[in-house]
Structures are given as structure tokens and as C-alpha cells.
């Protein structure tokens, strides 16, 4: 089956270590793929390369088997695109912006656009310059979804949206996925990815450091454990236990981080009198931050290679 998105050695070098380097990525049709990374990591550069807006220094990108550069027009027939920052349309009203861009695209059902405006509670009668940031984002979403594309490429889609509209956006993504569309969305908000994505890629410093299914990523998660003792704290035994680190003792209370199996920790606690034990699962935010804190891109790349570098 032809991949919805396929990049091989895709690079864009802006100099001084900035840009995107040797991106090998595959997203399957019908998949919702989250592309995560902090500001300046290379998310928008990847998206612009996929959209044929900028030219790669090396490598290539394909969308449904079409070359993103040489067959850009055909690619865009299949794609709904939300840029990271929406264009200025000055004095045009929202309804005129939709009409103008729908005219350029051709074949857009005005009823579908009306339905989306209704769902997003977007007043298309206002002038673009009068729109708030959130309303501009809603207009951008409308423009991306209005032709029911086979692939949605969305750069930080919930930026500026209120919680109600975020929920509406998640429903729109679910519906698009149900009708078979592929969604590629970039974000630095992990909760958003947790809501809608099946697979995620983490990018840092222009390099892809991790690609995994959401549930695979959960396996990499650690637990933060807090133990309360009635008597001496077996700190040395806990520190020596395999898979346990970040051990801290405060009076009769011990906290530590456990990676993987709990058995070594429980063995270390065997002789102590435990009065309370709480284990907390970290959210993706903490996993994400741990990756960024601990892993150098090259080292993380090795980790990623061992887990999953392509579509599963």
C-alpha cells in the first residue's frame, strides 16, 4: 500500500545547526500521526517541505506516492493544510476569504464550509482584521477541512483555541479518520497528541529522535514511587536496586523513580516496615521532558532505532 507520507533522508540545512536533518519517516493512510517537538525543533520545516513550500537540501518527500516538489499541485489536491501562522487577509470578510480560496481550489461544497463554521461557532461575517487569534485559527481549520481532503497537514492546530473548540477539533479529527483520512499534526502539547494520535514522532534539534505507537511509548514510561516507613529507611538497598534511580530521602519518606519491573524495588523493601506506598504513572509531558533532558539526539536516535523507525 502506498504510504500517505514518506520521507527519505529529507534534509533542510539553514546553517549553524538549524534545520532538518536526514528525516526518514513513513505515515500510513488512515493514521493519525503526532509530530512533537519544542519550538525551533524543525516541525514547521518538515511540514513546509511536505507542502513543497521550501526545497530540500537533500533527500525527498512523497505524499501518496507523489513527489512533494515536482508534483506539488497534485499533492495539494489531496491535502488540507493549516499553516502555523495564518496569512493576513486584511479587510476581507471571513466568508470572502473562504470563497476566494475555495475558488482557487475548486470543487468545494459551500454547504460543508457553512457546516464547519457552524460547528466551530465562527462568524464569517466579520472582517479578517477584526478576528481574534482564536477565530483566525478556526478560519484556518475551516479552510483545511472544507474539501474533506485525504490528508490533513496541521501545524499546531489547537493553538489559540478555547477548550470547547479544542474538543470540537478532536471530534473533527476523529470523523476525518473514520472516513479514511490521514492526519499529520505537529504540536508541542502532549495532551493533544494523547487525545487523537495513534503514533507519534519526537523531533529535537532537527533530528527525529523517537517514533513510536502511543502504547509503545507507555512501555518506556517510568513510575514515581513514594514510600512511607515506620522505622529505618532502607535507602542504600533501594539505591542498589536495578532500575531504580533518583532516590531521595526526607525523614521517614523516600521517593524514587522506577523504570520497568517493580520486583527489584519490592525486594529492597522486603525487610523494612512500609506504612504507605504510592506509585504514580507519569504523563507524556514528563516522558517527553525526560527524553529531552536525558537523551542527546545521537544517543536517542540509537534508542529510536531499537524501537521503531517506521510505520508498524
Amino acid at each position: 500500500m502506498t504510504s500517505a507520507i514518506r520521507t527519505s533522508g529529507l534534509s533542510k540545512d539553514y546553517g549553524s545547526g538549524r534545520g532538518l536533518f536526514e528525516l526518514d519517516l513513513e505515515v500510513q493512510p488512515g493514521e493519525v500521526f503526532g509530530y512533537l517537538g519544542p519550538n525551533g525543533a524543525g516541525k514547521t520545516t518538515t511540514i513546509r517541505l511536505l507542502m513543497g513550500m521550501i526545497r530540500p537540501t537533500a533527500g525527498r518527500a512523497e505524499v501518496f506516492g507523489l513527489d512533494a516538489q515536482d508534483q506539488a499541485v497534485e499533492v495539494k489536491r489531496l491535502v488540507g493544510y493549516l499553516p502555523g501562522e495564518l496569512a493576513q487577509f486584511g479587510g476581507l470578510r471571513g466568508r470572502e476569504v473562504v470563497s476566494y480560496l475555495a475558488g482557487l481550489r475548486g470543487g468545494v461544497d459551500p454547504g460543508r464550509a457553512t457546516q464547519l463554521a457552524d460547528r466551530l461557532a465562527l462568524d464569517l461575517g466579520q472582517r479578517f482584521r477584526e478576528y481574534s487569534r482564536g477565530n483566525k485559527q478556526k478560519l484556518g481549520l475551516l479552510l483545511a477541512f472544507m474539501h474533506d481532503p485525504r490528508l490533513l497537514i496541521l501545524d499546531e492546530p489547537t493553538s489559540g483555541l478555547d477548550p470547547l473548540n479544542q474538543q470540537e477539533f478532536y471530534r473533527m479529527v476523529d470523523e476525518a479518520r473514520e472516513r479514511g483520512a490521514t492526519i499529520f499534526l505537529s504540536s508541542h502539547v502532549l495532551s493533544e497528541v494523547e487525545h487523537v494520535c495513534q503514533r507519534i514522532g519526537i523531533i529535537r534539534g532537527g533530528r527525529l529522535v523517537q517514533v513510536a505507537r502511543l502504547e509503545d511509548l507507555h512501555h518506556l514510561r517510568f513510575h514515581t514511587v513514594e514510600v512511607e516507613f515506620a522505622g529505618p529507611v532502607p535507602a542504600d538497598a533501594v539505591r542498589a536496586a536495578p532500575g531504580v534511580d533518583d532516590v531521595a530521602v526526607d525523614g521517614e519518606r523516600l521517593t524514587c523513580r522506577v523504570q520497568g519491573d517493580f520486583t527489584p524495588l519490592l525486594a529492597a523493601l522486603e525487610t523494612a516496615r512500609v506504612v504507605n506506598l504510592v506509585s504514580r504513572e507519569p504523563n507524556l509531558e514528563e516522558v517527553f521532558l525526560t527524553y529531552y533532558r536525558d537523551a542527546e539526539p545521537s544517543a536517542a536516535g540509537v534508542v529510536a532505532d531499537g524501537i521503531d523507525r517506521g510505520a508498524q
Partner: protein
Amino acid sequence: MARLLRMLRIALRAHRTALLVMGGLSFFATYLQGAAFAAAAGHTAVERAAFAQEIDSLASQLAYLIPLPVRADTAAGYTQWRGFGGMTLVLPIWALLAATGAIRNEEERGLLETWLGSGLSRIGLIVARCLAFVMVAVVVVAMAGLGALAGVAASGESVRLAGLLELCLAVLGLLLACYAIALLAAQLVSTRRAATGLGGAVLVALFLLDSLGRINGRFSRWAVVSPFHLRNMTTAMAPGGSFDLPATLALFGIAIVVSVLAAGAFRVRDLGGSLVQGQARDRGVVHTVSPNPLLRLPVISALYEERVGLLGWLVGSLALAALIVSLAGSMNGLLSNASFQGYFAAAGTSDPTLVLLGVFWAGIAALLIAVYAITQVAQWADEDSQGRLEMILAQPVPRWRVVVERAGALALSTALLAGAGGLAIAALAPGQGVHLDGGRLLLAVGLLVVLALSYGALGAAVIARMPRVAAPVLGALAVVGFFMDEVGPLFKWPNWALDISMFRLYGAPLVSGLFATGLYVMTAIVVVGFGLALVAMRTREVGR
């Protein structure tokens, strides 16, 4: 104080392009007039007296634009009339754009919130903006003064320094008064476009008041409230001219009082709002897409979006045509003048009205069309930098279409403007006893489109690589070209130098028909420029 100084630096930085353009323009406008005087007026007292008589005759026809000259037989008098008189028309336009851009443009871009959020007071902000403009205006007017000094000296004459300084003071007062008026207008509406429209309308009304006061005694007592009238009261640069101190002080008084009013209005109004706000209208929420078919038509959609501005240009084009025809109709007396007869003979005709139409209408219309084309290029650059191009190319449209549509919209809009002016000329000329060759008029109109496309092609080629410099470069090219075409022959500059001017390439089709070489060169510029733009568009990177 530190914040105020920081804001002052930012404001001065915002003026740097205007400083270069207006400073250069002011210098050359006055220098060229002064330096050209000797070549135009001759060297003997008799020649100069005859020249002054011709200028007086011409000036009486132009009295609604520029006041009558004082001692046009001297380089100082001639430069005051033509150099400073012309600058009096141009500088207020700059003041208008600077004042409406100073607050409203930055408000629309969200910069004002950032600055006010940094702890700078509203009064501090507007004081910094006004101070920056005063500093830049002083430099620009000084450049005009220096240009006049150098130009008059080049003609072998001298100018009374105190008189020149007094004239510069009056011009500076006018500039600051116009800035203050436009600044106040910007507080009364909520967008830059509306502010420019309102400020422009007020300034035009004040200009017309002065103009009517000059040509019709009934309006003269009302003209005293016009800053243009107050500026024209000073003629100190010309020998025998006078300096009107109260009028000059009144100009500075207007500038200060109106600026204070503008600052007060800015202090109390909402950001993004106007000083006077009507009751909010409940127009209901709209979820439907615009059914307007014009938005979906290639080329037409671009013109539709610019319809208000285009209408303004259209009105201007018609007004210019009507004005020039009425002027040409009253010029028959010039035929008896020996100097002008030579001029007509050089143009290949003895019909003065035809020459005036050919030179004035075609010349000024060509300049206006060039300015229009440059505004379109500036808009293309804005579209690219503000993400519009990215949104267009996110649709399944080939990149070449953007260039072709831009060229098409430019061709169509200039055809509309030039065509309207041409039709007005054709309709009004017979009533003034002017007999035109229809074919040549059509040629003049058609060549204006080619001229606009030439500027557009150069702009399209430049913005692909250097979007920010395209409009200033084209502006400089147009201004230098216009002056070269105007004064180059007087200085007997070589043909190759004169041919650099696009206006020279346009020629004088109403008078002398087609200048084939010019058409070929302009066509080559169009083909090469848009060709380069197409290649650049194919490979260029898009996105902010």
C-alpha cells in the same frame, strides 16, 4: 525617560527609508530646478525677462496648483516657484502617510500593544512619534534648502541665505501641520485605510480652500485657515520676496495644538477603536460562504479586493484628464511666444494644445501609472511576507499562475485607469477646440499599460529575492527617470543616459506617435522581468 528614548529610536528607525527617499527627492527637486534655470532662461537680461514673461503666463494657468512666481527671471525666484512649489504638493502626502502609519498601521500589526505593554505611556508613545517626525522633517526640508542653494549656485547666481531659511521654516511648518492634522484624523477612525482617507480628504479640502482663495476673491477670506495658504504667504527666497512671520508661527501653532488634541484623543480611545464609537450593531452571525462570483475569477478577484483603492485612482485619473484638457484649451496665447514656438517646432507640430496634452497629460499620467504599478509591487511583496502566498500555494494551483495573475491584474487595472483618462480626454478635448488623432490617443493609452507592466516586471523579478527593497528601488527609478526626462535635455545629457528613463522610452505618443525603440525596450523588460519572476517563483521558498 529611558523608555521614551528607546521609542524615539524605534520611531526614527521606522523613518529611515522615508528619510532617504524624501531627503533625496527634496534635494534633487530643488537642485535640478535651480541648476536648469540658466539653460532654460538664457544668459542675457533680455532673454531672462522674456523667459519670466512666459513663466508668468504659464503660472497664471497653474495658479490653482502653485502660487504665482516672484521674480521668475532669477534662479532663486524660479527655484522657489517650481522647486519648492512642487515640494509643497508632495511633502504633505508624505506627512499624511507617516502620521497614519505611525499609530494605525502599527496598531493593526499588534506592535502598539507590545510597546504599551512595556510600560511606555500613551502620551510618551505619541510624543516619541511626533519628535521623530519633527527630526526627520527638519532633515528633509534642510535637504531641499541645500538643493536650492547648490542649484542656484550652479546657475551662476546666489541666494539670500536668510530668505532661504525663512522659506524652509514655512515649508517645515506646513509639513508639521499636515502631520498633526493626519495624526488627529487617525484617532477618529479605526483603520489605517480609513485614517488615510479621512486625513487625505481634510488635507485636500484645505488645499482646495487655498487654491480657490487664489483664483476666486470670494474664497480669499476663508483661505486664511488653510495651512497651505499660510505657507504660501512666505516668498522670502526670491529677490523682493517676503517672510510672513505671523503666518509661519501660525503653522507651528496649528502643529502643536492639533498634535496635543491628537495625543488627548489617543489617550482616551480604545486600542483598535476610534475616538467616537457608535452603538454596536447586532448584525447577526453569518456562517455562509460569500456567493460573490468575482472572488472566484482569476485576476478579477485581485481587482475586487482592491476596488476601493482602484476607484480612488480612477477618479484621480479622470480629474487629471479633465484638468489638463481645460488647461490646454486656455493655452492658445502661448503660440505667439517665440520661445514656446521653438518648443512646438521641436515637438514636430505647431499645435500648442496638442503639445500640452501630449506633454502634460501623457507625462503626468505616465508618472501616476508608474506610481500605481509600484504600489502594486509593494502589495505583492506584502502578500509574500504576510503569508498570503503560502495560503494561495496551499491550494492546487501552479506557481506560475501567481505571476501571471499578478501581471494580468496589473495590465487590466492600468488599462482601466489609462483608458478612463483617455476617454475623458477624447470626450472633453473637442469642447476646448483641441483636435486629437484617435489612433494616437489609443496608442498613448496602450503604451501606458506597457509602461506599467515594465515597472511590474522589474518589481516581480526583484521581490522574489529581495521583497523589502523592490518598492523603494522602483520608486527611486521612477523619480530619477522622471527628473532625467524632464531636465536632461536642458543639460544636454547624452541620449544613452536619457534612455535609462522609462518615461523617455514611453515617449510622447500623442505628439509624435510611436517611439518604436522605446516600445521594443519596454517589451523586452516585460518579457525578461516576468520571465525571471516565473523562474524565481518556481524555485523560491515560501513562508514566513
